[in-house]
């Protein structure tokens, strides 16, 4: 009949072997972190591709009306500005390392939060209005090539989608983003304290 002390001594004598070294683990983690940055870059690349695709309409279609030119110019300018803002935000967080410059990182994160808030509010409406005007002007000539029912369908789908994005998607994205960044700031502030205590 064995007692618990025997079990404890058995446990203590059983040496476990961790197969992965800290270097290997670090390599894995880095690979993972890099994938987050890659996702962000893919987002920006997607916007650049949209820019190219819209701009290529000029090359592949025989555009005659000035309204189409004006519409396309407004749309691609909006996309370009939005892409630039995305890139600025990406730069703000991608290049900073919390463990190296905690204060700077926190400052940038707070700035990022303000930027995003502005992006989803005032800037979003400017973007949406610019896109609506651009699409409206673009349709002025292009829709003439379609039948009446098709025209109605295209207009309904386009503006319906924009309305859906403005009313629902934007609010959800704003809420999530606000919570996420607030949590990040809170965490880094807490971590700052912990690192100071650990020193």
């Amino acid at each position, binding site marked *: 009949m064995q007692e618990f002390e025997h*079990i404890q001594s058995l446990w203590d004598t059983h040496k476990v072997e961790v197969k992965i070294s800290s270097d290997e683990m670090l390599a894995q983690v880095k690979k993972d972190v890099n994938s987050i940055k890659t996702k962000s870059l893919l987002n920006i690349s997607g916007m650049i591709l949209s820019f190219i695709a819209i701009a290529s309409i000029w090359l592949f279609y025989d555009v005659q009306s000035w309204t189409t030119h004006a519409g396309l110019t407004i749309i691609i300018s909006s996309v370009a500005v939005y892409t630039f803002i995305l890139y600025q935000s990406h730069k703000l967080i991608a290049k900073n390392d919390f463990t190296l410059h905690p204060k700077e990182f926190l400052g940038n994160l707070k700035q990022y939060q303000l930027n995003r808030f502005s992006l989803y509010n005032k800037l979003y409406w400017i973007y949406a209005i610019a896109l609506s005007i651009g699409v409206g002007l673009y349709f002025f000539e292009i829709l003439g090539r379609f039948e009446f029912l098709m025209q109605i369908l295209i207009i309904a789908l386009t503006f319906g989608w924009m309305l859906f994005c403005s009313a629902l998607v934007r609010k959800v994205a704003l809420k999530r983003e606000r919570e996420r960044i607030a*949590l990040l700031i809170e965490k880094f502030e*807490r971590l700052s304290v912990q690192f100071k205590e650990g020193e």
Partner: protein
Amino acid sequence: MEHKDQLFKNIFDTNSKKIFHLCYGYTGDTDAANDLLQETFLKVWQNLDKFRNKSLISTWIYRIAVNTCLTYLRSEKRQAKEELTDNIIENRVEEYSEKNEQIALLYKSISKLEENDRFIITMVLDELPYHQIAEISGISEGNLRVKIHRIKQRLTELYNQHARV
């Protein structure tokens, strides 16, 4: 970046053995324990933004490990493998010395405990302070002491039953 690398290595070096022991105690399988260890540390890095300074970083890592183990074993893939736990434990012990046989029995006995009890006893055996175990398992320290007493009794019973067979 070098500072960050060093920090991660320190976190890993300080905690990996205990986390591995926890995973091994829970699964009784070296390969599974290694997989779980890696998954745990990936989550540690990914979820650093959710870390609260209210607890020690080791407590936080333990909690991630516990959740990782539970999720891992509850998945369909692991369900099938779980049935093999006895075989795994028995086959892993290559040298059939008396000591190794006893260790195999110990892991077999642990595997017969309830899920949460397995974690708790693993942490007890690893000599984690009670307040830390209480925080990880979400049980009050008073209740935990009673629970640990019962788990110790149950484990000893199971061990002795297996030893007699």
